[in-house]
């Protein structure tokens, strides 16, 4: 394995870790809102969250490129804040990955919150727990299986992402060249041995993740609907 390949592996793990952490911060309140809100808008939001499940990654990547680029309004905003533009940078990849993996984080957590039902939270309220306390002492621990599923899926899904990365300009070594892109490069350059090593590693990794999920109770398929 070349040092470039090892760098790609590290970059991939870094991307997946940062993405998963951000996703937990974003998906938890979103899932809670989707699980508890009584408004009709939540169906709209649910559909939006699920969109990356059905869209080709290249579509998502394409619009992200436009949005984050110098002419997009997010791009103008980041430029005005002297942050530069996000495409072709690691933060740009993170932004794309977060969007791309959002349903894989939101849906298991939402399902777990919904499975708790109202009763345990009502009980906690009658035992003097305020809303935050109820969330932290009852909802979060009871939704643990959903969180575990969400973490594993978000991480694994980010590791396996290709289309969004490519569209957002991911082939800069040490910055945006993640594993899937490195494999693509090797294959294009007819370096089948190197490609095989990385691709085989991915197969093994993905299998291990799925096996872990099933050992944890196979909750994903029930929850992801």
């Amino acid at each position, binding site marked *: 394995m070349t040092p470039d390949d090892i760098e790609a592996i590290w970059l991939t793990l870094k991307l997946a870790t940062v993405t998963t952490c951000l996703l937990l911060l974003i998906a938890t309140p979103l899932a809670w809102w989707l699980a508890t809100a009584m408004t009709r808008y939540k169906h709209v939001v649910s559909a939006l969250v699920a969109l990356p499940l059905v869209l080709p990654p290249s579509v998502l990547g394409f619009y992200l490129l436009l949005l984050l680029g110098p002419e997009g309004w997010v791009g103008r905003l980041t430029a005005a804040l002297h942050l530069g533009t996000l495409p072709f940078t690691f933060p740009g990849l993170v932004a794309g990955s977060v969007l791309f993996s959002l349903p894989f984080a939101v849906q298991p957590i939402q399902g777990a919150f919904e499975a708790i039902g109202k*009763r*345990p939270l*009502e*009980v*906690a*309220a*009658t*035992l*003097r*727990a*305020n809303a935050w*306390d109820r969330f932290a*002492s*009852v909802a979060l*621990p*009871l939704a*643990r299986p959903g969180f575990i599923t969400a973490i594993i899926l978000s991480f694994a899904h980010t590791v396996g992402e290709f289309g969004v990365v490519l569209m957002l300009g991911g082939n800069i070594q040490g910055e945006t060249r993640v594993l899937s892109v490195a494999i693509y490069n090797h294959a294009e350059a007819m370096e089948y041995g190197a490609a095989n090593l990385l691709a085989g590693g991915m197969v093994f990794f993905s299998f291990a993740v799925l096996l872990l999920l099933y050992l944890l109770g196979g909750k994903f398929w029930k929850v992801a609907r």
Partner: protein
Amino acid sequence: MNGISARFRLERDGFLLDASFDVPGKGVTALFGPSGSGKTTLLRCIAGLERAEGSLFVNGMRWQEGKSFAPVHRRELGYVFQEASLFPHLSVQKNLEYGYRRAIDRQVQKDKVIEWLGLSRLIERRDVASLSGGERQRVAIGRALLSSPRMLLLDEPLSALDMRSRQEILPCLERLHRELEIPVLYVTHALDEVARLADHLVLMEEGRVIASGELSGTLARLDLPTAHLDDAGAVIEAVVAEHDDVYALTRLDFHGGSLWVGKVEEQKGAKLRARVLARDVSIALEVPRGTSIANILGARIMEIRDEGPDKVNVCLDVGQMLLSRITRRSRDLLGLKHGMTVYAQVKSVALTR
């Protein structure tokens, strides 16, 4: 200002709750009615779990009035749900401590609650799933009491339990009835629980309160639906007066008379509650002779009402009110009328501690 004063109005899915009652600020008040009469909804409004229009005052505390609405966690109450609803991610001990740690004004004595409910052996258990239904409900009641409530709300705590678990919890509830100083609202559709545990009765039907009052007086009213129930009957507060060791009997005295019952363990002077079912009381015009029935009480007929096609309910004053259910034919054969002096023969008495 002592007492509990509640007025609520809530419309939901075609059901209208429009209930108000005023009951004393101590003792057990039963909210009694058929299923679907809105008892649980009313209890949830009292707890603040439903947001109804109205007002609620509990022993001088204003929990709701007009726009002001104390959220559930600010109302110092204990709520026991129909199913025990213990937190599955916490041990028995942690469940019990949940409200104890969060109590606003911690006044409860932990060991007493643990003793009343027989929790000392359960507290060791890690997993609440290993508890039986009755044990779970006892822990749930303990958990509610340990939050130092100023009022305890029980929503049919026995209805989800089998017969054996019920028999296990009823003595605990009777114990609480004797020991607790805070008011208790007890939702039930079982008249025997009312007769055993309540001091006060609020009767509900189709979302409204149709009657409310002190227990024995309300149970003796023939115009209320309670009189139509199969196990309609009166409740008499009595005192242990005498033990007869030869025949293993005990004499209970009440205002206006006495009853002989199978020997009880209580000391002389102990208070007991006797429940006499209407179907266990027959009526004679003269003192019956040559009868095996030991309890014959002089009585005055206060009221007679038809009960179905063949029966009548009779309200008898024996010093306290008794109910008797006899056939219409017997009424006519004996010529029973309002104001007559007769003899009530009591076939059986159920006792509550």
